[in-house]
């Protein structure tokens, strides 16, 4: 033992073997398939978001009088500002897409079933957290969409019985959009929500580690010994390659379709066409179809059903003859979500 390793061992008395045992999770063979790396993808993209987001915060000013100009400065004047802002925006888009695909994969492989019900619920919280990050993110640019998106959302919150008015005041820091509103969105976007996200991801990964990855068997797999491969270095290599591919993809998207800026927010002029970002199209279409309190309450019910799905599914499987009902319900829900998103994308109002 060298002097250095003795010194370190005296202060951090962890046995290398034990550390390796703890971190080197045996991974089922099916993770060699690329589409099973969809959980690591949002995690990697989140790191990209933290890095680019911290940098953007060096120049961003969360006040109505300066926010738009500071974003313009980042986009047009700051060295590589256009690149970092575009990467931030595209990584957000890909992150939401990857989270949704990850959830679909978990759903259709039944990976949420006992004993993993709690991790499904943690995943739901992560989905909500990610969507809220998306919402607060585009509110910060202070273009027309930012202003009216926030105003419409606050009005939607207002229609919730009992707590609606309170939620609206908490969101806007007052009865209406005012000069303290942006600071709220900024703190939520850059501190509170990422903090929650980190904590939830830690729980998510800890639960995966405790329960192990769901084991699936594909017909074409070689009959290996136990069908496992070591996390280090095999799966790390996979994740490294995914990371590099994502960086290339993000850079290409940022270069070919850089983040632009809409017109400056104008409280006096309601835009002709008001639409949220694409990931809220389905919610927005639903709200327009139902209207008012019914829409908000039904949304709440849908989210509750999604949270409780592992238990509802277990009940289906125990008490009814439709053991594989979840597949058909999932297919129907996915088609409905895609359909409503496309619908909202195609129509002007």
């Amino acid at each position, binding site marked *: 033992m060298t002097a250095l390793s003795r010194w370190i061992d005296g202060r951090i008395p962890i046995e290398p073997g034990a550390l390796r045992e703890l971190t080197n999770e045996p991974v089922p063979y099916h993770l060699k398939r690329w589409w099973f790396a969809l959980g690591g993808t949002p995690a990697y993209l989140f790191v990209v978001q933290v*890095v680019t987001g911290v*940098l953007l915060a*060096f120049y961003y000013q969360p006040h109505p009088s300066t926010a738009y100009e500071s974003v313009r400065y980042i986009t047009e*004047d*700051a*060295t*590589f*500002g256009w*690149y*970092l802002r575009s990467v931030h925006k595209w990584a957000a888009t890909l992150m939401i897409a990857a989270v949704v695909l990850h959830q679909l994969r978990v759903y259709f492989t039944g990976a949420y079933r006992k004993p993993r019900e709690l991790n499904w619920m943690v995943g739901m919280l992560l989905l909500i957290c990610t969507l809220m990050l998306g919402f607060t993110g585009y509110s910060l640019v202070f273009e027309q969409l930012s202003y009216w998106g926030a105003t419409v959302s606050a009005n939607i919150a207002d229609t919730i019985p009992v707590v609606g008015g309170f939620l609206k005041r908490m969101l806007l820091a007052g009865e209406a959009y005012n000069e303290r509103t942006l600071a709220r969105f900024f703190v939520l976007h850059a501190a509170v929500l990422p903090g929650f996200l980190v904590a939830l991801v830690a729980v998510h990964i800890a639960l995966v580690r405790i329960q192990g990855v769901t084991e699936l068997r594909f017909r074409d797999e070689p009959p290996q010994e136990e069908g496992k491969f070591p996390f280090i270095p095999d799966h790390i*290599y996979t994740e*490294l390659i995914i990371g*590099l591919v994502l*960086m*290339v993809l993000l850079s290409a998207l940022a270069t070919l379709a850089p983040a632009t800026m809409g017109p400056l927010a104008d409280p006096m002029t309601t835009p002709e066409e008001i639409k949220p970002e694409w990931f809220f199209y389905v919610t927005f279409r639903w709200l327009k179809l139902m209207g008012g309190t019914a829409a908000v309450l039904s949304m709440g019910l849908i989210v509750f059903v999604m949270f409780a799905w592992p238990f509802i599914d277990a009940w289906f499987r125990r008490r009814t003859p439709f053991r594989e009902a979840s597949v058909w319900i999932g297919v129907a829900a996915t088609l409905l979500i895609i359909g409503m998103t496309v619908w909202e994308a195609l129509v002007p109002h």
Partner: protein
Amino acid sequence: MNRRSQDAPADTRRRRFIVAVSRATMAAGLLGGYGVFGSVLGRFLYPAGDSGTVWQFVTPTDRLAVGDSLIYTTPAGAEVHVTRRDDTGATGDFTALSNVCPHLGCQVHWQPQHNRYFCPCHNGVFDREGRGVSGPPEGMVLSGYPIEVRGGMVFIKVEATPLVVPERRS
């Protein structure tokens, strides 16, 4: 020794070589890719250009005699001593120095009879290059501005926009 066992080490060597090359490629990819990204991050943080500064006309060279100084007020509100120390007609004849004493922020004055800047607050003395030579600011310097003579006219490079601080409500 048969043929098989002779081939085996060659096969292992080739395998080892391929593993080493692929590892090196991966490491180079990671270093290169994230290295470039890291340099982008650094460039983003470093203040972009000097778009906040502009060249401003101060005076025709023949309006300022050797040994004289004038006070120029920048668009941002700072005051600058523009002093002439020689008459070759080149840029080196002129200095542009802030009138703010680096000691406690008092205003320094040009004293042509002594060929020096003087701060009356604590008797600070600066030579004509702006170096503190006695008193509390000894060893400190008056901050300078880039200066240039073009076609018989003196220009200095200064901040164009002031830091706007809203007035305190009484």
